């Protein structure tokens, strides 16, 4: 029973690198290995590199599902809807892809028209309108996966359940998903889209996760828990059954890690700012935990599932800098990537944000790992473009993203600390904080591998949603803990209010806060109740090797990231090794 060492392992697979964090008796060890084609090999390589032994808890963030969706490598999928509604996935919500480029197309639906089928039978808002006739259910051919989305199944799933059972009976090899199992909420297109994504990804995700679980067992590691888009973790079997829940797995780990760092530094209100090479994710952390949204688009497809409320901008350290016909400086969305990389890597790359940072003296002459940065190449690539102007432009993009998650959601950024991570986050954070009047910037010691740290700290979480869509006054007892989605009868969008004794008063108050007026005479409708079974994550304690103070202007080199401390800023590390910067 006794184990001499009790270690916790987190492995996050990214596009370029796979990061590992090992918590071993309070000590933190990190490692970075290149991501291989087969992700399970990278995971094991990272585990070896970090010296994982005696691991009792193993958490994992993966991009397998996301990549399979973006690269369209999912299963051959069929779609079953009510007769007359077969083309739901193709009709979307009828908006065009671009207002003024008239032939631009949305990303094509995951299921082509010839595999979209209908079945006779209909449920309406108040129950069955026409009995289900399973004899009209067509043969779905050689489909490997089937998504079933019938109208009003979020209220009465009986037809959908019968269709799914019949499909499973007829096609024992196929993976069949019912929309009410995945996203039991109204709005058929969004629910159908979520279900189709889930079905499309299931065979790919299941293959990978089972291979990983096997490899982990062979390596003496416990079965991994998988990070969900919601910021919780689930078992391999659960994630494999519904891979639409793991599309934001890696970034969710970063957000959880940022929350951990902020709470331990004594900041209850924080904003996570994760600036990588090609994109930047920001997320509000009220109470030190990620805010969640009920829907998010991935690869142009709506996913109606609880997801950390990330706002993503297509600009990062490696984004290319250009000038348009009107003389405006553009940053991104194209990126120099890892190869050739920024101009200063000396491999023939174009001008990037990183080059501008180098010319401004915010990067060391040599990166950890021995890459000597080529200043002359950076100068040549930028030409007559002022490097400070490049930083200002990219910071304007970042500011807009930070405002979207804070100001636009009714939060004053001045009440928040900014947690900066990712390769480029700590370079830009102080300037952004100044613009938003934020007083404190937190730079975790593991800024380059924070997602992996978040994985080890993740709580086990199973989200449940119960759809009501009926007057609040007529609803009986509700759970004690969780959130309620409420609206005035007649509205279509809900405000989410924590479950409490006087829900009505709480909703009027929230409406007043958000929209500037409440209408107490209007009837309130309860749309859904969201609850989660949560098992707290492991108690993570961090021990630091060396403490230091810093006074701007200064450059601080961290594991996998560089921090720029401008003039007027100063700071010191706390017990976790987090650099707390203030003005």
């Amino acid at each position, binding site marked *: 029973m006794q184990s001499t060492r009790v270690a916790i392992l987190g492995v996050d697979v990214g596009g370029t690198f796979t990061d590992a964090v090992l918590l071993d008796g309070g000590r933190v060890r990190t490692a970075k290995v290149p991501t291989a084609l087969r992700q399970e090999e990278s995971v094991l390589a990272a585990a070896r590199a970090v010296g994982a032994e005696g691991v009792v808890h193993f958490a994992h963030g993966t991009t397998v599902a996301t990549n399979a969706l973006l690269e369209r490598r999912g299963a051959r999928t069929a779609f079953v809807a009510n007769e*007359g509604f077969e083309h739901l996935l193709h009709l979307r919500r009828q908006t065009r892809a671009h*207002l003024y480029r008239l*032939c631009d197309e949305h990303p094509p639906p995951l299921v082509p028209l010839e595999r979209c089928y209908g079945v006779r039978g209909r449920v309406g808002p108040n129950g069955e309108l026409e009995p289900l006739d399973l004899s009209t259910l067509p043969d779905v051919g050689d489909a490997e996966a089937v998504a079933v989305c019938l109208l009003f199944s979020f209220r009465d799933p009986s037809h959908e359940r019968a269709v799914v059972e019949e499909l499973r009976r007829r096609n024992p090899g196929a993976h069949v998903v019912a929309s009410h199992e995945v996203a039991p909420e109204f709005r058929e297109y969004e629910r159908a889209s979520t279900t189709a994504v889930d079905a499309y990804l299931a065979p790919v995700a299941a293959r990978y996760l089972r291979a990983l679980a096997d490899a982990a067992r062979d390596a003496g590691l416990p079965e991994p828990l998988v990070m969900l888009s919601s910021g919780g973790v689930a078992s391999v079997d659960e994630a494999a059954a519904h891979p639409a829940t793991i599309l934001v797995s890696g970034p969710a780990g970063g957000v959880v890690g940022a929350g951990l760092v902020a709470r331990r530094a004594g900041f209850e209100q924080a904003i996570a700012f994760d600036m990588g090479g090609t994109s930047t994710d920001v997320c509000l952390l009220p109470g030190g935990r990620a805010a969640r949204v009920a829907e998010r688009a991935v690869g142009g497809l709506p996913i109606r599932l609880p997801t950390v409320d990330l706002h993503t901008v297509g600009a990062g350290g490696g984004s290319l800098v250009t000038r348009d016909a*009107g003389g405006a400086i553009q940053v991104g969305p194209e990126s120099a990537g890892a190869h050739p990389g920024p101009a200063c890597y000396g491999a023939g790359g174009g001008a990037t944000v990183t080059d501008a940072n180098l010319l401004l003296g915010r990067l060391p002459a040599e990166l950890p790992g021995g890459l000597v940065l080529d200043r002359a190449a950076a100068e040549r690539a930028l030409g007559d473009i002022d490097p400070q102007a490049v930083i200002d432009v990219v910071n304007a993009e970042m500011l807009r993203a930070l405002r*979207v998650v804070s100001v636009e959601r009714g939060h004053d950024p001045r009440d928040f600390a900014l947690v900066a991570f990712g390769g480029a986050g700590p370079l830009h954070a102080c300037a952004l904080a100044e613009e938003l009047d934020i007083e404190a910037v937190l730079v975790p010691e593991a800024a380059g591998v924070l997602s992996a740290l978040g994985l080890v700290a993740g709580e086990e979480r199973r989200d449940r949603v119960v759809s009501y869509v009926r007057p609040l006054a007529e609803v009986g007892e509700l759970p004690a803990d969780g959130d309620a989605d409420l609206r005035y009868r007649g509205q279509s969008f809900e405000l989410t209010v924590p479950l409490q004794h006087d829900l009505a008063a709480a909703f009027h108050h929230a409406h007043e806060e958000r929209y500037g007026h409440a209408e107490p005479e209007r009837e309130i409708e309860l749309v859904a109740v969201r609850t989660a079974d949560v098992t707290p994550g492991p108690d993570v304690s961090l021990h630091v090797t060396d403490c230091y103070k810093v006074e701007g202007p200064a450059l601080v080199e961290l594991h996998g990231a560089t921090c720029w401390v401008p003039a007027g800023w100063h700071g010191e590390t706390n017990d976790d090794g987090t650099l707390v910067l203030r003005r």
Partner: protein
Amino acid sequence: MNVELQVIGSALRAVAEEMGAVLIRSAFSANIKERRDCSTAIFDESGRMIAQAEHIPVHLGAMPDAVAAAMSLCLTPGQVCILNDPYTGGTHLPDVTLVSRTSLGYAVSRAHHADVGGMEPASLPAFSRELYQEGLIIPPMLLTAEVEQLFAANARNPDERRGDLRAQISAHRLAERRIDELCTRRGRERIAAAMDELYAYSERMVRAAIARLPDGTWSAEDVVEAVDGELTIRASFEIAGDEIRIDFTGTDPQDSYNLNCPMSVTRSACYFVVRCLTEPDLPASGGAFAPVAVTAPEGCLVHARAPAAVVAGNTETASRIVDVLFRALGNRAQGQGTMNNVALGNDGFTYYETIGGGQGACADGDGPSGVHVAMSNTLITPVEALELSYPLRVERWHLRTGSGGAGRHRGGDGVVRELRVLEDCRLSVLAERRAHGPHGADGGEDGVPGRTLVNGEEQPAKVTRQLHAGDVIRIETPGGGGLGSG
């Protein structure tokens, strides 16, 4: 463009977008909350459009006239002007526009309300012959509690109207706060200077793009299917250096029914085409339209004189103006050329939707299927949202496969939508392209014309009639034209 300018430009656009989000999220009618038939924008002190949320093209191009009309009231900060009169700043009566004074310029919201009174529920009568029949006319006036009461009292669903109007007001309150914050943070003078420069920047970009197009004059004509027979729109499109001149001389006199466009709507349609041709990705300010001159003889279909009825001009004639201009330029096939307006209502409910169809094929690709093709980009109401709130049932909703015109590039397909009414009610359908399919170009085939059926019986392009519980309306929307011989 300097960096501060880019930063301020982003901030102003963010204000317009946030206004739109607040309006949609707190609105009550399906047409605003689900279909997002609304637009928002920020204007400067002199009434020039500086930033907009990209929602509905027909709204946006016509907004400067609304601000000009509101400015005559000399608003003070915090005051809100309401208007819908097509002859003083409006488009058609259901589009209710609010203009409020901020600490630096104006905030504008325009939202299509599902009923503003008039002779038929949902205020889209097929047979109106003068504006008075189309609803309550609101010339520019201060929005007070009394005006709100008057407005609600004249609509068939006063509770919903009040809710939607308050959602609009919320958007304005937000804009006022945000512009205040911006001025405090960066200085009012700098914001004002940035607004000037943002306007000039769009103008420079669009002028440069026009200058890159070959000079010349092209002309074309096409028809709309009026109640009394077809009416012709003629247009000439001239590119000269860095300017565009569009003239509608030769267009038929105004319709005795309601296909008429006030000049603001005609200009809006022209601006849309210029935007597609020049700088589709530019975050536009009013400067983008400074190089464009639009003229039309007064009293013609596209420059109607008060009190001509206008309800279908905004959706249908505007669509055809776009078709005529693209046809003159010859490089793309026509899209469905109609918005397929369907309005239903009785004493208990009013419901309005517009339905997408086939886009015309472009030189570089097939036309998309089942979308709004030009001056609108509203969403469809989800079946479940519709059935939860209205005495309606959706019987079918699918692509009208094969309706797009053949060609080297195919036109997009239209759609089929069937609604069963569960109560006795009035129906109005304002549609086009029922007699003639959208034209193909360069040897491509025409799209299949649309159809409107009630219980299987074909209806004219414009129809208002009684329905009984159980009746089924079927709309088959037109396919887009093809481009190039197959």
